[in-house]
């Protein structure tokens, strides 16, 4: 009998392993339950009633973007604000998965580890969320962008603090009256649930010349003495590379300002696949940007299978190049910051310490996207692009450094218009990226949207140049 008892210790051991497993499960539950709850297919929060007790969503100035009044979800009274911030705030459904009302629905509805989502509605305390965006800026940017009736995106963010001031994506609909999308009209609403700021990647066109310039100043010692001959077209690697017009003889700064494809195509070939890839990688083109846990679409620079002509085109942002709007804003912000990026965020820090004016910056310094001296050179050349070519009165007195792009997308479609850049003003540290699909010249189409957004954003920050 004693032997049997001793051997039964084995079964006890199995049971202890089981108890250990329960402990592991409990630990996982305590650590991760909040993430588990936040899924669009959680029926407790995903139906339309899910927000009937939810907290409000405010913009940076405390303006209510979405709130629950008498059990009904009510969005901002301005239609432009509603549509402009659709992809940031979200609607009653969880169709826009990256929106705050989808991502943080459990927080809005008052989830807690102890009570789960089980509190009766009359006793549940819900939480408000304050965003970093400025409703006015977003409305203005949306009005400018939606005038084209094309898909596009516009993002403005503070490259010192990471706060996103403006994030607008078209097409959009009114969250107060979401459309019924059926088989008949689904082509009309194609991609409407996608936040183009975060989740789309576009052909960059000439804005990619920022990367090629960075590679050039790092790898060609006499780059500033060089000149290029542009006759509007040149054969490189067996096929032609073309410019919009014949730029004549240009140096590096002029080539950037006038966006001379031939100069940059030749540069890309001279710099070579390896260095181009190295600089693009370092600048984070092939990575995604993290925005409060949401990963943006990744850009693409991959010339491993490119021939010489394709390598040439890759230097002017064509071939298979892709970039994401948020990524470009962060990249421009890094140039302004001397090469270091700052992670963007949509959530305003409303902690107690912050309210006392104590700022504990927990987020580590961002990645170095450019070497400091490279960033400095890019800054000068992008500033030259504005002052020399476009004129400095464009952004209402802000000292802006920027680059436009007009990306050919083939299929007989009109090009994608781009403008990316940043303001150097001490009291207005804003970077921006603006993209409009199927329109035309970057300066003509993306320019006005960027200008509207930047000026309004600068006003909301109280920048002296625009007062």
């Amino acid at each position: 009998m004693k032997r049997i008892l001793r051997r039964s210790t084995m079964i006890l051991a199995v049971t202890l392993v089981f108890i250990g497993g329960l402990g592991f499960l409990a630990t996982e539950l305590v650590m991760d339950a909040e993430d588990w709850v936040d899924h669009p297919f959680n029926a407790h929060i995903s139906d339309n009633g899910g927000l009937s007790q939810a907290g409000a969503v405010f913009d940076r100035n405390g303006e209510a973007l979405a709130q629950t009044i008498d059990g009904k979800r009510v969005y901002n009274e301005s239609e432009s604000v509603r549509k402009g911030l659709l992809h940031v705030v979200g609607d009653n459904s969880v169709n826009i998965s990256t929106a705050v009302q989808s991502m943080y629905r459990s927080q809005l509805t008052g989830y807690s580890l102890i009570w789960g989502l089980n509190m009766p509605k009359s006793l549940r305390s819900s939480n408000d969320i304050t965003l970093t965006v400025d409703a006015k800026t977003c409305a203005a940017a949306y009005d400018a962008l939606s005038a084209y009736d094309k898909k596009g995106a516009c993002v403005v963010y503070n490259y010192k603090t990471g706060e996103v001031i403006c994030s607008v994506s078209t097409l959009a609909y009114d969250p107060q009256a979401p459309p019924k999308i059926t088989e008949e009209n689904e082509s009309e609403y194609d991609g409407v649930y996608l936040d183009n700021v975060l989740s789309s990647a576009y052909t960059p066109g000439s804005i990619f010349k920022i990367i090629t310039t960075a590679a050039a100043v790092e790898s060609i010692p006499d780059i500033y003495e060089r000149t290029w001959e542009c006759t509007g077209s040149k054969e490189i690697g067996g096929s032609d590379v073309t410019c919009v017009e014949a730029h004549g003889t240009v140096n590096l700064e002029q080539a950037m300002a006038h966006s001379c494809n031939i100069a940059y195509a030749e540069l890309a070939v001279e710099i070579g696949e390896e260095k181009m890839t190295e600089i693009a990688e370092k600048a984070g083109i092939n990575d995604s940007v993290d925005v409060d846990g949401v990963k943006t679409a990744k850009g693409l620079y991959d010339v491993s299978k490119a021939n010489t002509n394709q390598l040439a085109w890759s230097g002017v942002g064509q071939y298979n190049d892709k970039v994401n709007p948020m990524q470009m804003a962060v990249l421009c912000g890094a140039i302004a910051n001397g090469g270091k990026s700052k992670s963007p965020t949509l959530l305003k820090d409303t902690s107690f310490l912050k309210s006392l004016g104590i700022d504990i910056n927990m987020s580590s310094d961002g990645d170095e996207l450019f070497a400091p001296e490279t960033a400095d050179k890019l800054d000068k050349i992008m500033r030259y692009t504005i002052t020399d070519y476009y004129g400095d009165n464009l952004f209402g007195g802000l000292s802006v450094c920027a680059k436009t792009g007009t990306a050919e997308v083939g299929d007989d479609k009109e090009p994608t218009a781009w403008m990316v850049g940043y303001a150097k003003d001490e009291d207005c540290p804003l970077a921006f990226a603006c993209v409009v699909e199927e329109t035309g010249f970057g300066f003509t189409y993306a320019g006005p949207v960027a200008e509207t957004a930047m000026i309004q954003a600068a006003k909301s920050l109280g920048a002296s140049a625009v007062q």
Partner: protein
Amino acid sequence: MSVIFDIGVVALRILLPVYAIVIVYQCYAAMRRRRRPEKPLVTLFDINTGRKLPVLFWENTLGRSKSSDIVVDDPAVSRSHCVLLRRKEGWYVNDVGSKSGTFVNGKRTRGRTQLLIDDTVRIGDTEFQFRRGEEYTDKIRTNRFFSKVSQKPAMKSWKLMLLITLFHLFMCIEAVFWNDGSNPNSPMVLFFALAAVEWGFFAISYFGLKRVNFELESLAMFLTGIGVILLIRQVERSAYVQLIAAVVGMVIFCIIIKFIEDPDKSARFRIPAMIFAVGLLLMSIVFGKVTYGAANWIYIGSISIQPSELVKVIYIFIGASALDKLQTNKNLLEFMIFSAVCVGLLALMGDFGTALIFFVTFLLIAFMRSGDFKTIIFAVAAAIFGVTFILNFKSYIADRFKAWRHVWQYAQTDAYQQAHVLIYIASGGLFGVGIGNGFLKQIGASESDLVFGLVAEEMGVIIAFTLAVAVGALVIYARAITTRSRSTFYSISACCAAGLLVVQLALNIFGATDILPLTGVTFPFISSGGSSVISCWGLIAFIKAADERTYAVKR
């Protein structure tokens, strides 16, 4: 007004977990109490030295080996010399292959030989006189489970049952409040049916069978009732099917206890039982209908049964045996072949979960029977089975392994069930969203394979964990009564039955919560499934039988 109502609802939800813990505690507390004091059954008086050796157990090994129950320090005695055992008719001694033999009153024994008080037993050069237990007066070290038991008498069985019935009543009241309007009062109807079964069984046990204790049955009833009530807001009919199955389970529980009353007689049925088990499994291969990828169901008219569940009970029965048989017949070949056939047939059926349960139970039984070194050989043999059937299920396993620990990535495909279980466990919080108020019930198999998630969502994590621990603690109980069982047949079967339930429980909980890459087994007593409930009741019959009071003490 509605706020006051809501506060009431919240108070009830907080109350239930506390109440569940109290019930489970009381069940186990009652199991410890009302035991006979540990004292020797008989005494062996060494005629040469005058030393008295206490005989504590119903079955005892005598030998030179330190691990013998009665150690005889005599070079002429074999390491494992003979077994001294008590049966209804009296005491027996049985030589288990010693070199020098065992002599009773000077006569060499053949097989089991009866011993009467004052008889002499000679093994090697040592001669004992067989005396009464009262002769031994020294103090005896007692098992920790039973020591330090407060002198307070155990909670009366009927009071414990009343607590459990009240718990089920609260659950039903909760279920009444959350309904889709189609059957608002059906939980109360179910409650009365359930209460009738509970008290009916209690009455039969108390007045009919004259049993002194009812704690184990109470615990099983508590769990069974929860499983039944959870079904009322899913498929009302299933709740009644489950309840009827539980009644069948209780009947089988009683039959098994009666059947194994004499471990020696019932041992004769080992071979027929083996043939019956293999026949059952073969039947489900031939007539089986494939459900959820496993051909483990057979349909007789409108009744469907899962033979593999019933074979679990037979498997435990076949695995156990009395101590003298264990010592003489050390050959496990027969049992190994039987195990291999069972696991192989289950593998053929595609019932991977049950095959794994059998495999682990095989290891446990083999170790309990043989001790140390042989188990290694068994493990190797078993591993060969394992590999064979893993190959058999390659594609199915590969899919599940791919999604294992990556549920969110495969939340809409291969890990659909696990992802939803985690979401709803978290949504339920510590106290649950209320019976019938959850959403996991809309997911397939939520009432069986995923029932842990269903309990956690609707009744809260505390209750879910309490129920898991309640089943797990059966092992502690089975071990505690090991040396007090009337035969190793009972102690082995009780420990292994409890072990089997724990293994099954672990696969159920950890499979559903993505800790293990496997689903498809049931939560003992609670998961919906008639065969499963019947087999659980059948398995605890072995634990009940191992409690010496079951047969020895009557009211």
